């Protein structure tokens, strides 16, 4: 509760300073909009459904692209972790590919798929995939060997060994990678949407720029931050905490 109080005071102060600067008219309102202008833009955006559509379209792309990345990343990561040849070849390639910002895949995606949904999903996939793959590989390697031995000892093999032992045993080691994959994918998606102009939050942001509507620009930025916070801060952090409690890594 104390933490919440601190946060409320902090954000109120932040908005207060913002309002004060806006009131002083240091910069013209079309460059530095007041908080009430942004609030109005948020209200209007949700009222005419354009923000709702943006949020739904963006989240849908994110979920589809990210799910693809998780499934592919797990297969790739496990393959690399369990095969010496793959580790020495594909493993090195993955690490070097990670240094490529995923926005760099956009030209390729556009040429391959055109200005379509597929191209956007491809960019999200490339944004998330490498993090998830590398996390899965690390997790599989860091996972104490005793669990897989105990599983085999108790009669597990093949897919059941993977599903009931290897996957849960490596979860604490891959959850941070899953989180990182989400964050990378999220950034890639917004970037792609800004270039693509195809609904979504990125497009709303660019539309604000095109119309010289600073209120909308800031409103969409806030929306992106809030969505990111909800997923990152709430969903993933809760998952991490639950895992740690179960494993006894932190007091429950």
């Amino acid at each position, binding site marked *: 509760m104390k933490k919440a109080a601190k946060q409320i005071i902090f954000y109120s102060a932040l908005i207060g300073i913002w309002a004060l600067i806006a009131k002083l008219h240091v910069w013209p309102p079309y460059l530095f909009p007041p908080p009430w202008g942004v609030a109005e833009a948020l209200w209007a955006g949700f009222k005419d459904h354009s923000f709702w559509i943006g949020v739904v379209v963006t989240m849908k792309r994110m979920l589809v692209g990210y799910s693809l990345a998780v499934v592919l990343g797990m297969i790739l990561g496990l393959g690399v972790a369990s095969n010496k040849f793959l580790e020495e070849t594909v493993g090195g390639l993955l690490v070097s590919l990670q240094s490529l910002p995923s926005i760099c895949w956009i030209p390729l995606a556009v040429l391959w798929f055109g200005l379509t949904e597929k191209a956007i999903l491809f960019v999200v996939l490339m944004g998330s995939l490498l993090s998830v793959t590398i996390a899965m590989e690390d997790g599989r390697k860091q996972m104490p060997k005793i669990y897989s031995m105990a599983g085999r000892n108790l*009669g597990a093999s093949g897919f059941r060994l993977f599903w009931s032992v290897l996957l*849960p045993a490596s979860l604490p080691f891959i959850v941070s990678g899953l989180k990182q994959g989400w964050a990378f994918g999220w950034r890639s998606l917004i970037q792609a949407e800004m270039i693509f102009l195809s609904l979504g939050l990125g497009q709303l942001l660019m539309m604000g720029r095109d119309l010289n509507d600073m209120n909308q620009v800031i409103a969409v930025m806030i929306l992106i931050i809030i969505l990111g916070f909800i997923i990152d801060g709430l969903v993933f952090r809760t998952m991490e905490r639950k895992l740690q409690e179960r494993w*006894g890594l932190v007091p429950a």
Partner: protein
Amino acid sequence: MSTSPQNAYPSPVPAGHVGAVGRGSVLRGKPASSVTILPVRDVSIPKVSLEGISLSYRTTSKAQLVALDNISLQVRPGEFLCVVGPSGCGKSTLLHLIAGLYQQTAGQVFVDGKAVNGPGTDRILIFQELGLFPWLTVAQNVEFGMKMKNIPKAERKEKIQYYLRLVHLSKFRDSYTHQLSGGMRQRVALARALATEPDVLLMDEPFAALDAQTRDLLHDELERIWAETGRTIIFVTHNVREAVRLGDRVVLMTFRPGRVKQEFPISLPRPRHIEEVDVARTAKEILGCLREEINKSIEAEYADEKSR
């Protein structure tokens, strides 16, 4: 000893009859105490038979290390066999071989006359580190092996209850393993292994990390459970007294390469207690033979350090 150790046991079992009771009929089984005659059982076929087992591997410094050298050993059905030896003699490796988790370089392991190729639920190993699954509750841990054996849910539920009661952990069925004490975790591992109803239970220094009191208690419980379930147990330890306390027979292994040095049949009446004079006397005798091997292992360690 002022009190008789017999008093400590809930269901005293006549010596020599233990291990022959209720095999494979744990849930339906008669209470152990009702069996008074020696049941007929074909003891001519060994339960577990090791024939010329050798294992060698290359160390990081490319030297050939012989861990196990030509080990032959027969274990009778229902026997409680203890294996002792200095640390590094390969006794733990031997258990992994019988469990089918490692592969020997020569020789063959037979269970019921059939060659072992890989793991199987007829032989369950309780690891020194236990390897309980931290993402599962106590009950789910116990259930795991049965699930893998595709035992129907209703039966699994019944057996979870039975085995948790057997190890006195019914109250902790929904706890996670990190919430339990060392002795309790040990009992979860025991219940998890027993629940798959293996013919052979392989135990790798299971009580080494426990305090003396907990260990004594678990000795009693293990002896009782062994008597009630009639499993064949191969129990590895470096504690000679523990081996004499529990075993029908104690096998002494040599230090690197691991060989069978000597076998000691233990005919002391059960139930036994670790503080008994007879146990101590027998242990002392075996310890004399073990001392030589321990000295060898210490010398080898010094030599390793010098060469470094």
